[in-house]
């Protein structure tokens, strides 16, 4: 890099390394570039965020105690959506209630019952997270293979054509007291029948 810093006698007024620092930074930098190109295709999470809004509208929940509470989509664990989910839900309503996004780093932090819980936890915490919402009117959504086998309701998957689709367990959705519209089920791979 060619940045040479002389070892000097103590002279607290002078800081040779500042110049080295600045020099180093300038050397690493290049002339101001043109704006970076946009991605060729949207990220899978943009599509998944849009799906969540549709799920919110096309699923029936037991009626809430009060109508003025917001409709909450909780992201539990590492948030893969970022602003995409905020943009997808901005000003949107479901069942006449404004949609609100809440983010929790762990399932332990979840205080109020959300309507949709997107579980992005580690494998180890997944069992705990699913247990947390078991039997409650919460649409659990995830994107791990095996999410549905472990008790989740909706699991995203990506087809070889790079389309985002999903698996749905009707048994699990019935257990949560939810009814999913046929419009959603038509697109889904339903992995079990309704509760016998």
């Amino acid at each position, binding site marked *: 890099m060619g940045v040479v810093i002389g070892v000097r006698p103590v002279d607290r007024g002078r800081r040779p390394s500042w110049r080295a620092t600045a020099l180093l930074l300038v050397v690493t930098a290049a002339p101001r570039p*043109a704006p970076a190109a946009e991605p060729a295709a949207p990220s899978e999470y943009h599509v998944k965020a849009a*799906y969540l809004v549709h799920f919110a509208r096309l699923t029936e929940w037991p009626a809430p105690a009060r109508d003025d509470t917001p409709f909450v989509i909780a992201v539990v664990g590492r948030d893969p959506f970022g602003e995409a989910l905020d943009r997808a839900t901005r000003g949107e309503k479901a069942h006449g209630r404004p949609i609100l996004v809440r983010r929790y780093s762990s399932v332990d932090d979840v205080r109020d019952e959300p309507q949709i819980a997107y579980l992005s936890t580690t494998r*180890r915490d997944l069992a705990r997270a699913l247990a947390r919402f078991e039997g409650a009117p919460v649409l659990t959504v995830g994107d791990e293979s095996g999410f549905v086998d472990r008790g989740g309701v909706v699991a995203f998957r990506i087809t070889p054509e790079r389309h985002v689709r999903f698996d749905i367990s009707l048994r699990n959705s019935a257990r949560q007291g939810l009814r999913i519209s046929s419009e959603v089920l038509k697109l889904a791979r339903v992995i079990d029948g309704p509760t016998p």
Partner: protein
Amino acid sequence: MGSACLASDRRASVSTLRDRRSALTTARGAERLVLAAVLAFAGARAGAQEPPAPDALFEMSIQELANVEVTIVAKKPQARSEVAAAVDVVTGEELRRSGATSFAEALRLAPGVHVARANSGRWAVGIRGFTSTLSRSMLVLMDGRSVYTPLFAGVYWETQDTLLADVDRIEVVRGPGGTLWGANAVNGVVNLITKSARQTQGLYLEAGAGTEERGFGAIRYGGLIGDGGAYRVYGKYFDRGPAFHPDGRDFDAWRLGQGGFRVDWGAGSRDAFTIQGDAFGGRLGQRRNVAQFTPPYRQTVESDGRASGANLLGRWSRDLGDGARLDGRIYYDRTDRTEAYLDESRDTVDVDLQHRFPWSGRHELVWGAGYRLTADRTTGVPTPFFDPQDRADHLVTGFVQDEVRFAGDRLRASVGVKAEHNDYTGFEVQPSGRLWWRFRPEQSVWVAMSRAVRTPSRADADQMQTVYLGPTQPLFLRAVGDKDFRSETALVYEVGYRIQPSPRLEIDVAGFYDRYDNLLGGRIGTPFVESSFGPTHVVIPVLFGNLLEARTYGSELTVDANPWRRARLSGSYAFLRVVVHPRSVVPGLTPDTSDRSSPRHQAQLRSRLDLPRRTSLDVSLRYVSALPAQGVSAYTSLDLRLGWRPVPRLELSVIGQNLLDPRHREFGGGVEIERGVFARAAWGW
């Protein structure tokens, strides 16, 4: 001398302030430039295609969505249970419910980590042996910024702080991490990761006071900016009382104020950015014995050491699609410490780039490169000083690691190597190989073999520290750094087993055998008469060198249980043996204490209970066996926390620490840690 010292200190602090300001502006401007340049580089490579407006997706029907072609985002970090290493994660929730008030104390939540409080502000931390107040062979990072000091090799725990409520998690790796993290990650890696600004929205207030924690307060505010960005700013202050001193001299009060910010934007889209920074200033009561060459030869000074610092970090992450990702990071860090008779200021600049991509179906390759410049200026007196007083060191690193998956992800093998060049020893190579196998759906085993190094610090190579030997004659002992000091090396063999017999129970066992070579030791040299620095006196030199070797072995057991929804229980036990001996017959070898400064047995039991009426109870019981070299006998300590949440956003809690005895010793120095009780109110969760 006293007045001259004061005057020069004042001048120094004035120029420091000015320099800091100019540094911050320089770093900010330059950072923007660098980010822009890196972006341009990556953008040019990605090629430009027709950009669809992502927001159009949100207008589409569900049927239309089903046919949108997407780019696939890089897979998320591996779960702890799928890693071929002894890893533990302390979550923000565990941290909040522990009542821990400092970074070092929070590490008690991780199994197998020995955390001893030496006095009010100083902590000795060790993983798998070699506990010391500087923790020389473990690497500590905060949001990817190394806080390991190259002056004394280790971490000044007392000044590493952040708003603990904003901590997302602390990842603790027991064992070597040199292949990914580089030198000095010999016995462990600790990485504190804060939440993104998006996760810390709104106002948060915290205040508390008690017997040992005399008073603390914090405020944070987070909001949204522009289109999809988020920020937060915070400030905090604490005043911690002195520990117990048998001689009644309460010198070690610890006060620190810190503020900082974090901005995140673009998360979830192709490019995500973070810029964050902190600044702190504090006073740390200290007692120093300083030798002098004129009678009475020794002075005990009790004074407040001053420490301040600031850092600025930028991170950029680009999703390259199809599971590939590029991560860049740059930071600048400045610290100033003024202690009795020894001052240090340090500037560090670090640039790091990492590229991760899958290939040929089964493989994932990660490679990266980095550069670090660290420059310090020290001033001492003839008894403690560094030669040379000022030093700048360059570090250039590169690594590559490939992971391959077989048998439908049930078997994973990874090999990797990190090569780096430092100014003390030249090239260092740190390879590792790891194998993980899930042989039953809920059981897995792993093995690993690694080589790791601890590169020389200034203290190993450049230190000149003289202490008075007495008792009445001018007779001194002088520690002399070894200019040819080579890196300490470790060859580490590890094995582990994990089982999750039910979703509510997880058991994790790890074992290790480490062989260390070229460890730091001291030997007595030929005494000589010296007449420089003052009146004629006799000096017995203690010459540093790569004189020792060691073997360590041990195991750690962790059990996590969630027997019912409102209860979590965890227990851990760690066994450790350290055997240190000379590499060869060395006359005049001074005794080494590292084998008896870490506990042979450590055990911990904690429970987290959610009780009715929005209350919670947390109990933590900790046993640590004796540390003969530190004059510490075995102790058991109990911490309790009772929390109440009268309304969802307010939490009141009472925390009692070290409840079983009025005071006990945890590390050398004769200081005892007292029982403490404090109350805390936090609003805004």
